[in-house]
């Protein structure tokens, strides 16, 4: 069964590619930003964050939170709401994809966990251990196709 899998970091091309290879649909930030940027009715360059995005974030964060956190969470909220499973990669280097703001990072991971969808949490492994990390991710994706629900 094909699932919508949210990846974290949400702009990780590598994780997105692995999800697609595993037969699922990846939910990534680039797609959400792409939709904003291509929307001819929004004129707020460079990534067309609108007041609606900031308001959407208020479902998850307090009005007192910094504007950048609200913008990031507002942008990610639709992905979170669509997600049927997720992969959280911890301690990845910035080149692997990142959200930039540590508080937004931690808060978004918390929101993913709170959704109680099948989630794989895996530590980034570089060098020779990259294979093990990829194998673990692919095994999770394979199981997703078979099982109804799995939470780790």
């Amino acid at each position, binding site marked *: 069964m094909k699932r919508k899998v949210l990846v974290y970091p949400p702009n990780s091309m590598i994780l997105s590619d692995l999800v697609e290879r595993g037969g699922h649909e990846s939910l990534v930030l680039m797609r959400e930003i792409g939709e904003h940027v291509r929307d001819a009715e929004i004129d707020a360059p460079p990534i067309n964050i609108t007041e609606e995005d900031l308001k959407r974030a208020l479902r998850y964060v307090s009005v007192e939170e910094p504007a950048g956190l609200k913008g990031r969470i507002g942008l990610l909220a639709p992905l979170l709401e669509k997600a049927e499973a997720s992969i959280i990669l911890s301690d990845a280097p*910035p080149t692997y994809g*990142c959200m930039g703001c540590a*508080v937004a990072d931690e808060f978004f991971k918390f929101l993913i966990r709170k959704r109680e969808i099948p989630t794989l949490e895996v530590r980034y492994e570089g060098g020779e251990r990259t294979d093990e990390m990829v194998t673990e991710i692919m095994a999770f994706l394979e199981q997703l196709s078979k099982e109804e629900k799995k939470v780790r």
Partner: protein
Amino acid sequence: MTKVAQISCGTEYSGIQWMLNDIAERVGIELVYPEMELSKVGEACKEIGFEAESPSLNIMMASAVSMLDDPAIKGALLLTCFKCSEGTIVKDMIRRFLHERTDMPVILYSNVEKPKEIELYSRLEALKTLIARKTLLMREKQEGVTMGVDSGSSTTKVVVMRDNEIIGKGWLPTTDPVKSADDAIEAALKEAGIPENAVEAVGVTGHGRELVGEHLRADLNLEEVSVISKGAALLSKCHKGDATVIDMGGMNNKLILMRDGIANTFNLGGICAGSSGRFLEIAARRVDADITELGQLATESKERYELQSYCMVFGIQALVVALASGVKREDVAAAACRSVATQVYDNQMQEMEMRPPIIFVGGVSLIEGVKREFENILGVEIIVPPYSQYAGAVGMATLVSGV
């Protein structure tokens, strides 16, 4: 177009980048984003001496290091989100780093999702002046006969100067900006004892400068930050080295760090009326004193009393309650002065280091009680130069003599 580096941790996520770009273009600034290799981020953090938890703040530090390699960049705009403590720390570290390595002006802004356009405009306009008019701002002496007009939000100040001396002054409440300027000019010329056509050049600054400048066909029209700092440097004869200027008027406060008599960073208030001269005007009325007597009354205070709120409404209410419960007028007057000074300290001074000497100008500088409270808070002597309320007008008269 003047190139200014925008160094931020992701302003685009706050939804305000389009506004920044729009305002920058209007004031003649091209915002550029210094590029750096991701592999150099660690090195940049080591150079500045700090590593943040947020990757984007580390990238921000790397951008600051990288901008030093581009000679076309003439200033920097540092932006992080309002209420982000880590961002505030990094922003301040970058400012200090840039001031150690360069003499370019740097401005800081804590962005919210709906910033007031005027807040951004006034900051970027001042940044542009500090870059584009640097040679003029280096002027340390007024020459010939010139007039400076400061059309402020509460009062209009005019000075006529001859060979670095003030020979005439006018100071009136601003009602219709043009009429107030005309009347203050008339008073200044009368005191100077010269006809209008003896004035060789006129310069205008302040909130009403566009309207008044057009009416007077001014030779120079500049925003307040660069002009007031120049006026403060001239009045206090502080042309070399570091200095800090506190300018407090009827509605707006400015905190300016100077080097060699030219502003190189600043912080603008104006968010809360509780830290304005207007608050003191209302407090004076409540203690049945003229605003000119409030400061002296405050210095007679023997018992410390604290207002429970900075707010223009609730602070004044606390003041009324205090008077009704028998607290002495002078203690209430001192509490009002302390309330204003503390709020300026909390909201503006803490964002920047205070570089002595500290020069206090603007109408509120004449209120002795506020000066004393700043001295208590900061633990240093504050300089209130003669004619401190005319700093903007003196700055303008001096600068226009170099045009």
